[in-house]
Every structure is written in C-alpha cells, then in structure tokens.
C-alpha cells in the first residue's frame, strides 16, 4: 500500500471513445498504455514516476480485465529485462523508472534489447529527474539513447501531447524494431489536463497465447555472429525506418513566424517555458503565436537531417534551446548543417549556460542576448524584477534554507541518534551512506555519512576498507536498496571477501523514500505479492553469522548493539537490522482507525510528548539529536530568560524518541509523555478520581505551605 492512493482516480481508466479524460500526467500515460493495447508493464518506483507505479498498482482490476500483466520489478534491470517478451512476439510492453539512475541500472538489459531489436512495441518511460526538485546527479538520458541507438521522445508538458507521444512511441518502436524512450520531465508527471479518450484495447496476442506457442529466432540473440549483424541493422535498416516514421507522422512540429532571418529550435519538453518567456519579451503571445519560427523537437533522437536543414536554410541564425550537458544536439545539428553546407549560424551553449536547468529566467537572458545580437534595433522590455532587485537582494539573509528531513516520528531518526551518541563515545567512523530517506542523515542535525554510491550500494561503497583496523567501516542500507541489489552486491560481497565491516539495514516495511511501496520484507499482506520475508533470514542465508534485529526506537539497545558489533573480533560482516515501521505509512493507516474507534466510544490511549517550560534550558541539545519536525522552539515565556525553549507541537505522534534521547544522552529532565485516555472505562475513571484526590490533597498542602512563605 503506497503513500498516495489512486483508487478513485483509476476509475477513469475505463472510459471509452470520445469521452473526456481529466487528470494528471501519470494517469493519462496509464490510459494511453491501455488504449495502445499494451500486454505487460513493469518498472521500479522513484521520483518523478513513483506515482505512475502507484497508479498501476491501484489499477489492478482494470489491468486484469484487459489481461495486462503488471509487475513491480525488483530493480530497473529486472524491469528492462521484461522487455525480452517483445523480442520474439508481437507483444507491446512498457517499463518505467527514474532516470538517469534507473537507466544506469537497466542499461545491460536495454543494450541487449536494442541490439537484437523488438518485434512488439517497447516503450521505456523515463522520469527525467533533472532540475529543481531533483534528488540525483544531473545527467541526460539522451546519452543512453545515442549509445544503444534507442529513440527518444520528449513531449511538451501538456496532457494531450503526452498521450499522443505514448501512442506514437509504440508505433515508432514497431516500425523500426527499436525500443523507444519516452521522457517525462519532473513537472510533466503531475501536470493536470484533459484529452479525448479512445477505447482500451486488449492486447491482440495474449501473454498466455505467446507462452503456449513459443517462437524462437536465433538471429535476435546477442551472440556472434548475430551481434555483428545487429550493428549493421541498427544503422542501415532501423534508423532509416525510424526517420521515415517520424517524418511521415510529423512528430516534430514547426511553428511559423514572420522573421525570415532568425529561428529557434527547442526540445519539446521546454516548449511551454520558452513560449511564456517569449511572451514576456514581446516575441510571442501566450497562445504560441510567435514572431520567430520555432522547430519543436519532440524527437531529440534521432534527428531528422532533412527537417533540420530545411528549417535552418536561408536563416541568418538559429537559437538552440538545449538543456543539460554535453550539448549532444548542438554537435549533431552543427554536423548536419556542415554536411549540407548550410551557412546558418547555430547559437546554443555560450549564449545559454553550459549546464543547469533552463528556467524562465535563464531563457530570458539567452533570448535577449540572441535577438539583440542579430536584430540590433530590438529592445527588450524592462524586466519587471529590475526595479525591485535591490529590495529582493536585501532579504537574502532572512530566508533560511529548508532542506528536506526525516518525517515526524520517523523510525530512522533514533538509529542516527544512536550512531551520533556512539561516535561521541568512540570517535568518528567512516560511514558509507546509501540512497533512501536515511540519506537525510548527511544533513543537519545528524551530519553523518561520507559517500553515497547508488541505490543498495552502501555496503559495497565501504568494501575497499577491508583492512585490519580499530575502526571497521559502517555502512547504511535501506530495505529498498537491500532487495534491489544490496543483498548480493553488499552483503554477499562482504561475506565472500571476508569484510569485517558493519552494515545497518534500515528495515521499515516499505520502499519509503519513493512513496511507501511494498517490499519482500514488508509486514503487510499484499494482494498478488509475497511479503514477510525477514531481512535477517536473508543475510543469514547468504552466510552472515553475526546478525541482530533491533527495534529502532530503543536507542539504548541500538547503541549497545552498535558497540558490540564494532568491537566484535569475529571475521566476516556484521549486519544490524534496524526495524520499525515507516511512521508516514503507519499514521496513514492507523490514524483513521483511531479516529473511528474514538468516535465509536472505544477505549483508546494516545501518547504525546511535551517539554516543561520552566526546566528547559534553551540549549536545544535535544533538537540536535533529533530534528523531528514536531520538536520545535518557541519564545521563552520566562521574563528572566531570552533563549527560545524547546516545544513539542500538535503534530507529535508520540513515537517516544524524545524521551529515549533524554535518557540516553542524559539531557535535561524537561520531557514528559502524556498518555491521554479516550473513552475511559469505569475502572479508569475510578482510579483517576482516587489518584486525583490524593494528589490534589498533597498538592494543596504544599501550596498552603508555599503561600505561607510567599
């Protein structure tokens, strides 16, 4: 069960010919897949396409009705390898992941698929995690398209265009026997909009029919001599076929404009930002009517030489809006122009920055520089920000950064608190971090973790430190990364190479960072999936002798187990499974139930923490060991004190971490835990009344004596 449910939205996937579909990009993509007669879908979650996986999971019934197989793959490599079903059979398939990281993982299978080619259309939907909001290294999937010769579609962020792109992608894939990348940029995934739907199509050939009538063609297997043949096929047959399809169906668009001298070539995905920026500069209106002709490059790979040549010919200069680096398009277009002896100047990087996201501000500068260079009479309108720039600069020191962090009550927090306390005692260790929520440990307040080498590679990232030392390396790995590849690349590797390091596997029942998707070690019963396979059992199975499972919130136990592992003299890796359910998902499940129980009159105890205003010192040591969003500060009410005091706000979920930290770090005695009884039983009420009376009597005595002295 993922963090966000699409149960209601997926009903729209059933609508038919002529009806209007209204929804987010990811839903529209799903509908487009069904309209295209897809037979199987697989993928691995990760922003920005996590929700595409969630939609597909929630659309189970619709998929079943159509006979579409959907798999939450173990990794992107597993998802890509699924595409093998399209090699021998006319089965359409789609796989999806976060790119470029997922594409890196998938590239072995992708390269094999592209070499042998496909019979059924295969679309690889990549969530291009680039620019603001991205969480990964800034690279381009474009490179993979070029090196394996897969085609790439980059539609504008517009729901109807995205749907069209999906449908064309299948056709293009089949016309050229080549897998096709469909690139969805971060903000395209959740762009809302509508399009006119068509009927869903059952796959013409079912998976079952294919399996029962196996078909085999050795020329499609990547083994000499076929592999040499494939290389020839790629350039001599598949490429020209693709060019023909793209041209014939007009996948790239030309928007004419009055200027004879100048033009703009833009990646499809950047078209909307370009138009809005041109509108601000008076070069276009908000409806796309432009003064400078625009060539909208919806298929950035392969380029269509003829289209490029005819767009550029006769123009003095053409501006290329190409985001990311290296400037593959610029190189490619320059070479096309050279080959055709076209003298048009191509203006790209240099006028635009070499690297970084092309936001509206960046485009504005680039456009101004381009147009004023070639139309000397042209004057850019005054920048509306110009007049206030000094004012805006003045608040720079008053806008605190707000980095992401672990959620309220997150079970990973106490693991890092324990690590921090352990390091206070034993000194700092080399900590190899991994991908997942736990990577927030590198930010304040924990500030720990040396490197991160990729999903599930925490332990492998420490494998070089396989040397006798008083400080064995510590690796962190999430359960997501563990099942993705960490079990073999990290744990198996450490067993085989006799590495003494400690791996902490954060086991919170879900692939939490990507939105709470289920896992092998998840505790929930999940329809169509096999769960509840303990991580400790897996590592013991692979040859680890020292393995412990500890509840994360028990900081004392966690700290002593860490120390035990680090001082253990036995050879071989130590694995500490830090177990507690992801609080975000737990709360999502439990909160409505608790509310219902309270409303139904059932006895419920809710816990919440608090800080005593009078005893808090305003030192905030507790916050430096926690960082929980609900543990915050407020002005000191004491007339004699000025430092803000710690304060637990309304959002506290009573996870218990604050109290544990106070105990383990020997902090001040300010924390208290409130246990609120809803719908108390008769016994509760009686006990409470007796206690209150006795305590009230004691209190009154103290108060009387106090007043006498006052």
């Amino acid at each position, binding site marked *: 069960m993922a963090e966000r449910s699409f149960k209601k939205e997926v009903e729209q996937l059933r609508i038919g010919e002529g009806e209007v579909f209204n929804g987010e990009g990811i839903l529209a993509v799903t509908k487009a897949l069904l309209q295209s007669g897809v037979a199987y879908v697989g993928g691995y979650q990760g*922003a920005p396409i996590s929700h595409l996986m969630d939609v597909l999971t929630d659309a189970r019934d619709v998929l079943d009705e159509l006979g579409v197989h959907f798999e939450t793959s173990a990794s992107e490599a597993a998802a890509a390898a699924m595409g093998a079903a399209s090699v021998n059979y006319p089965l359409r398939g789609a796989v999806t992941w976060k790119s470029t990281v997922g594409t890196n993982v998938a590239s072995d299978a992708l390269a094999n698929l592209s070499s042998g080619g496909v019979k059924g259309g295969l679309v690889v939907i990549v969530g291009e995690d680039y620019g603001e909001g991205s969480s990964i290294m800034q690279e381009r999937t474009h490179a993979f398209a070029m090196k394996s010769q897969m085609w790439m579609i980059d539609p504008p962020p517009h729901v109807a265009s995205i749907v069209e792109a999906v449908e064309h992608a299948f056709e293009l894939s089949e016309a050229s026997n080549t897998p096709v990348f469909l690139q969805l940029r971060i*903000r395209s995934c959740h762009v809302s909009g509508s399009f006119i739907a068509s009927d869903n199509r059952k796959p013409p050939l079912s998976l079952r029919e294919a399996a029962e009538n196996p078909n085999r063609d050795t020329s499609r297997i990547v083994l000499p001599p076929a592999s040499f043949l494939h290389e020839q096929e790629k350039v001599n047959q598949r490429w020209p076929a693709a060019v023909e399809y793209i041209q014939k169906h007009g996948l790239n668009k030309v928007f004419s404009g009055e200027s004879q001298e100048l033009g703009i070539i833009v990646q499809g995905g950047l078209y909307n930002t370009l138009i809005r920026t041109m509108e601000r500069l008076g070069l276009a209106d908000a409806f796309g009517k432009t003064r400078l002709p625009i060539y909208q490059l919806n298929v950035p790979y392969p380029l269509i030489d003829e289209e490029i040549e005819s767009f550029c010919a006769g123009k003095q200069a053409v501006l290329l809006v190409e985001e990311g680096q290296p400037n593959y398009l610029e190189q490619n277009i320059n070479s096309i122009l050279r080959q055709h002896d076209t003298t048009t100047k191509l203006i790209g990087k240099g006028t635009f920055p070499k690297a970084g996201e092309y936001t*509206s501000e960046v485009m504005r500068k680039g456009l101004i520089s381009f147009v004023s260079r070639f139309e000397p009479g042209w004057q850019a309108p005054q920048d509306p920000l110009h007049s206030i720039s000094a004012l805006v600069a003045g608040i720079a*020191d*008053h806008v605190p950064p707000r980095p992401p962090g672990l959620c309220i009550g997150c079970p990973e927090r106490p693991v890092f608190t324990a690590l921090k306390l352990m390091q206070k005692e034993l000194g700092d260790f080399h900590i190899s971090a991994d991908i997942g929520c736990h990577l927030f440990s590198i930010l*304040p307040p924990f500030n720990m973790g040396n490197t991160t080498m990729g999903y599930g590679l925490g332990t492998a990232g420490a494998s070089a430190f396989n040397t006798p030392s008083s400080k064995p390396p510590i690796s962190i790995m999430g359960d997501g990364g563990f099942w993705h590849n960490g079990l073999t690349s990290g744990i198996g590797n450490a067993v085989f190479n006799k590495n003494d390091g400690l791996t902490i596997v954060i086991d919170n029942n879900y692939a939490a960072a990507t939105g709470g998707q289920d896992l092998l070690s998840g505790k929930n019963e999940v329809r169509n999936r096999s769960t509840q396979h303990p991580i400790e059992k897996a590592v013991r199975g692979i040859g680890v002798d020292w393995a412990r499972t500890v509840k994360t919130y028990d900081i004392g136990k966690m700290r002593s187990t860490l120390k035990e592992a680090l001082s253990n003299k036995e050879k071989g890796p130590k694995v500490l499974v830090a177990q507690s359910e992801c609080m975000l998902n737990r709360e999502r499940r439990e909160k409505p139930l608790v509310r219902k129980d309270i409303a139904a009159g059932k006895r419920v105890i809710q816990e919440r923490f608090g800080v005593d205003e009078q005893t808090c010192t305003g030192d905030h040591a507790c916050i430096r060991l926690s960082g929980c969003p609900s543990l915050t500060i407020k002005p000191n009410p004491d007339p004699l004190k000025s430092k*803000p005091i710690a304060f637990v706000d309304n959002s506290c979920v009573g996870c218990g971490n604050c109290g544990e930290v106070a105990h383990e770090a020997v902090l001040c005695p300010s924390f208290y*835990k409130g246990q609120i009884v809803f719908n108390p039983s008769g016994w509760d009420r009686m006990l409470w009344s007796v206690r209150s009376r006795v305590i009230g009597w004691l209190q009154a005595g103290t*108060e009387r004596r106090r007043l006498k002295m*006052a």
Partner: protein
Amino acid sequence: MEHKFERPLTVAIMALGGQGGGVLTKWLVDIAQSNGYLAQSTYVAGVAQRTGATVYCVELFPEKQMRESGREPVFTTYPVPGDVDLVVAGEFAETGRAIQKGFVTPNITTLIASTHRVYTITEKSAMGDGIIDQAPVVEVASKVARKFIAFDMEECAEQTGSIISSVMLGAIAASGALPFAREAFENTIRAGAKAVAANLAGFQAGFEQGSQTVAALGAAPARTRKVLSMPEAEGPNGKALLERIRRELPPSLQAIAAHGALRALDYQDVAYAGLYLDRLHQVIRYEQSLAAKKQASTEPDAVSHEVARELALQMCYEDTIRVAEIKTSGQRMRGVRSHLNVTQQQPAHVVEYFHPRFEELCDTLPRSLGKRMLQSNSARRWMQPFLGKGRNITTTNVIGYAQLTLLAKLKRWRRGTYRFTTQTRLIEDWLAHVQAAADTDYSLAIAQCIGMVKGYGDTYERGLHRYQQILSAVEELPPQRAAALTRQLNQAAQADEEGKVFAEALNKARLENHAG
C-alpha cells in the same frame, strides 16, 4: 466577468510538507473548471512530504475566450518570475522565498501569507537563539506586492478546527485575485464532501481576515531586553520585598529586580531573596560609582540590569530538588493538561523522563559527604547500576507524585548541600569579577558570560568549563581588549556543541595575548 485575458492567470502556492498544498491546488482547479475556466496544475511530488519546501503552480484561462478565439493558451509548468498573479505562502519564511524567486512583483502580484513560523532545522538546532528575523521580509513584501494580505492562518485553522488550506482558500476568495465569487469557492468545499463543516468554518475565518487590509504583523521575537512590568506578590513576604525594591532601587531596575527577588523567594525563602537584593545592590552601587567617574556606557544601568537577571537565574539553579518542586506544582500540572488538550475529567497520565547522574546525586548530598563521594571512584562504581540508566516516574500516580514531593521537601536543607556551596562560590566569584573590571563595558561582558552556565548534565558542565576558560583567558588584559575578547569568546562558546569554534577562538586569543 468580461475581462480579456492576454495570458493565463498564474497562481504559485509555496507549501511545506504536510500542509496540504495539494488539497488547495485541487480546490483551485475544481473551482476553475466548474466555473468555465481551463485549469492546469503542476507540482513535484514527494518533496513536500518530507518537510522541504515546494512550489505548486496553477494556471487558469476562460474557456469561452478560448472557444471564441479558437486558440488554446500555452500553460507553464513552473511560475514565470515577474508573471505571477497570486502567491500564497503557507508559512512566513516561504514568503521570503517566493520573493527571492521573483514571483512577487509590483502591480501584478497579490501576496497572501500566513505569519506563523515553522522554524527550520538550523534555527531550531542553534545552541542559543537561532531564529531568523522576518521583519525585513515583512517590509519588503509590503513594498513589492500589489496587495499584501497576511495573518496567522495556522491559528485560524486551529481555532476553527479545520486545516490551513481552507483558511488560505478563504483568504484567496477575499483577496479578489481570482475571478470567482465567494459561493464558487464554498461550493467546491461542499463538493469535496470531506470535513465540509470544519473546512467551511476555516474558509469563513480566512475570508474575514483576508478582507481586512494587512493585519498588524507580529514583530520578530525581540532580541533586546524584554519589557517587564512589576509582578504581583502573593503574600506578605513578597510584598515586603517589593516595597524594599521600590524604596531602594532606581525605577528602571525595579521590575527586573522584583522578578528576580520573587523567584528567589519561591526558590528558597525570604532570607535568600534578601541575599539576592543585597548582592544586586552592591553591583548597582558599583555601576553608579563608575558612572560618577564618567565611565558609563550608553545605557547607564546595563550592568545592573544584566546582573539582576543572571543573578536570579544563577541563584535559582536547577537541582533535583527544584526539578521535583516544579514537576509537582499545581500550576505545572494544569499547564501539562492544557498542552495535552484534554477535557476536565479526562484521565491523562504523565510520565516524566529523568536521568540523574552520580554528579547530581552528590550535588544534593550534604556538603562534605557530596564532596568525598565525588572524589571517590569506588563510590561512583558502586552507584553505577542505580544511576546508569534513565528513570521514568509517573507523576499522575500517587507513588510517583509522593516520591517527587518528598524530594522537593529537601528544600529546607538545600543550604547544606554540596551544590549550594559550589554554586555560591561560582556566584560570588562572578560578582567579584564583574566588580573588579573597573570598566562598564568589560563588566557587562562578564555579566553576560555567566549565561552559558545553566541546565543539567553535559550542558551544565560544558557551560561551566567554557566560562572558566574565558575568564582565565582574559585575565590580566587591559579592560577594553578584555571586554571585546570576552564577547567574542562568549559567542564562540555558543557556536557549536563540540566546541571546535570555541577552541579555535581560544587558541587565537592565547596566541595574540602572548604576542601582545
């Protein structure tokens, strides 16, 4: 509304994790679509959930105009700086961020902001006061926005039992920035069929507040002196003390001295409060004598004021006795119940977290015994099993409450405890330093410096150690240099817990002193 649109209307929502920026976005899209507008929204999923800041973008365009012109507008997926009609910030620091991103421009942007703060981790984890002042943002916001509406939406939501999104929606409706009537907004909430009554109440509150022009914005937390008024005394002893203060002290110091004296009275007894005033008096006389010698700084009572404050805090240090007294007081128990938000008769148990160490135990023992114990390694070892871990005491059950009450009763023997001796020595030594400085500025710097000695456990020991290091580092320096260095080191001592910054500053000071 027969307005001709040149381009879509753009709304940027600056949201924090869990604030429901998605809910607000969906409402806006629904309102637009059910009122003849095309709408497009975009956001980056997941970032907000994990408490970072994120931007939702909504664009609107009249369907009728599109049909008539036969042209579809090109919607953007990210607000274009200089081109945003409405910015809604669900927290005040996000307002600054919106301005920085260029979303707020004169003549164009209506800016609606909640004035409450959700402090960032750097603000929260600072050792002292890390809160970043928002006053300059308030000032700039009112200059750069076409219209600036700001009030505490979080409070509105709490009071109406709704969510901040509905309050924001109310404020949006009231601002007139979107071409829809109030009913259109309300109908969308109704159509949502989820917590309708609460959301409408939140909407109503937001609408009312949003209709007024900029509400008086809460100023940033004061960094300067708190403005204090004379407290009331509860009994005859307190009244006598207040009278003495009125009689003997200059008016500008009366309020703070009264707070200090009553604190000492509550902490120990009337004699202790008298001692407080005697000690303060000395410092006042000292400062006046400096003033007579034309040594005064800008504020003629700066040293006395600081001493009045710090002396009270140092004299009312928190030992186990004081903690027990605070934890069992009726006022505190009422405060806890109000924090837990429970009804009159609702049972709510309160579990305290204590972790007294060997040192705290010795502190509370009679002077000589405490001292001997502290020096004895075997005693420490012997007590380890009892003090090695934290203890939970439930103050809402009789035994737990009685335990603490008994502990609080040790108050009458406090003067005989080990800690009282060491604390007295610390205070007297500090006061002597303050009065030996012979320069108001230097005196003030030392007076302020004792502020780092506070709290319990590590915090207390770290503070004490650093305070002593500072005093010995500045000893023997000429007053002006000493004053500046004391301040520098005081600041460095509170820069980080590990003390890296402090160690560096100290080292540098030593080198310079040596050279000089």
